[in-house]
């Protein structure tokens, strides 16, 4: 399988049951997806188990990805995050709903905006330093709130409860934090 295939070509091939394409996708995305899962569940073997399930899911549900204008990078990241957070919530009995096909379609498969900008891992890895800088430019509080929301899967009210701060503060912090990342990234890219 040639590794120069773009993300859309790869997912199309996976949809057509090309196992080599899945292998290419694994080679390309497994480090970032594994890192994300590991950040959420911490244990190695659990992270590996979840990553396995993620790739099985990709194999089974790749047709659900919107090939026309879709952002595979964001789709995979969100899919992996949802799966890892679902595992974590089930362990702590936060989620008791039966895991079935319908649940998977509604709660695990990501619902992305149809107008999401196109992106790919290669592109993001090339500008990884800029992304890193953009996040580091946030205040510690902003970084922490973002981390609680994104990696720990807490809702705004859960964060407020955890940090014992008003919900509105959490809301504004999250809003400002993501806005700042967006602006910082734009700045970093414009500086080049």
């Amino acid at each position, binding site marked *: 399988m040639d590794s120069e295939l773009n993300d859309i070509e790869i997912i199309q091939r996976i949809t057509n049951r090309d*196992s080599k394409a*899945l*292998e290419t996708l*694994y080679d390309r995305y*497994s*480090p*970032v997806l*594994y*890192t*994300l899962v*590991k*950040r959420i569940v911490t244990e190695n073997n659990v*992270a*590996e188990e979840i*990553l*396995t399930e993620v*790739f*099985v899911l990709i*194999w*089974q549900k790749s047709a659900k990805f919107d090939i026309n204008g879709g*952002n595979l*990078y*964001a789709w995979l*990241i*969100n899919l992996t*995050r*949802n799966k890892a957070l679902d595992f974590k919530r089930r362990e702590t009995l936060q989620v008791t709903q039966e895991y079935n096909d319908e649940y998977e379609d509604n709660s695990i498969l990501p619902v*992305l*905006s*149809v*107008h*999401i*900008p196109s*992106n790919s891992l290669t592109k*993001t*890895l090339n500008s*990884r330093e800029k*992304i*890193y800088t953009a*996040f*580091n430019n946030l205040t510690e509080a902003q970084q922490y709130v*973002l981390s609680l*929301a*994104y*990696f720990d*899967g*807490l*809702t*705004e*009210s859960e*964060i407020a409860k955890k940090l014992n701060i008003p919900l509105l503060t959490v*809301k504004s912090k*999250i*809003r400002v*934090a*993501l*806005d700042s*990342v*967006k602006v910082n*990234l734009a700045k970093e890219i414009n500086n080049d």
Partner: protein
Amino acid sequence: MIDDKKVFGLLQAKALGCLDEDENIELQNFINEGFVFPWDELGIFQNTAALLPLALQLEIPEPELKDRIALKLIKLTEELRAKKSIEEEQQKTVEPEEIIEEEIDEVVDEFSEINETFEEPPIEIETDIDPVVPNEIEDLNTPLSSDDLTFNLDDIELPGFESVTTTEPALPQNDLEALSAEPIVNTLLDEPQIATPEIEELKVADVWIEPEPIQQLINTPEIPEVKSVVETKLVEETEDQSKPDFTKKSVAEKAFKTLEQDFDRLKYHFDEHEKRLSHKLLIAYIIIGFLAALLVVFFFKFNSDIESQQKEIDFLKSRPTSFLNFIEKDFASNLFS
């Protein structure tokens, strides 16, 4: 109802997936009610949020994980296949039952139609009976082509046999011994409870076994009518005779017959091949023998030539003025000088 400003304020949390349940519902309602939703903005935030994992120190999973994923996928695929095949088998067992019922209904209908017209003379009824015979049975009468013959019992496909098997749900495909056309035909023909056993009784032979009365009738003015009836009966009889009644033979027998034919064909081909091979070997032996004889002849010829040459040399040597003597002497003197 939330306003546009609030919607914009919820986009970041929506993109991060940390929106509270009630707000999420509110936002969903806003979208569902057809208000203009800032999809572009949401898309940008979703893309930005997806970049967050790249701020982490990247870790590489163990190389074995790839193999484990591959194994799991293979396992899943096999499970799916097994499931599908089971479902297909179940469908197959259900469908034929329906087909049989439908066919029985059709046959019943056809027979009921016959019953309605049964007031006509028996001879004419018999001519109506022909279409009652199910198509599947008629299909069985088509001769087997040699191309269709295979050694694998599972692959054997008899013309028209497929349609018979579809009406036979309970029988396993591999169990050829269990397969028989008789019970199917019986179910097709016997189950409709028709009070017309005359169909069986109206044997054509009964009509034309008695040639004498016909001959007697030749002199009477009614001859043409009777003759035409007899002729039609004769034609039907000959047609029926020309078609072997496969419905009364077991399918297993037919299958073994085809196998026997195949074996015979193979045997014939093998014999032919052996004959050709022996013929070629014989030709090869003849050629080898001829070459050997040629070799022997040439050997003796060259031997005699050499001997005659040797004699000639000896004769020349024996002469005192022989040129060969001078050559030898000169050669020796040159060599040691």
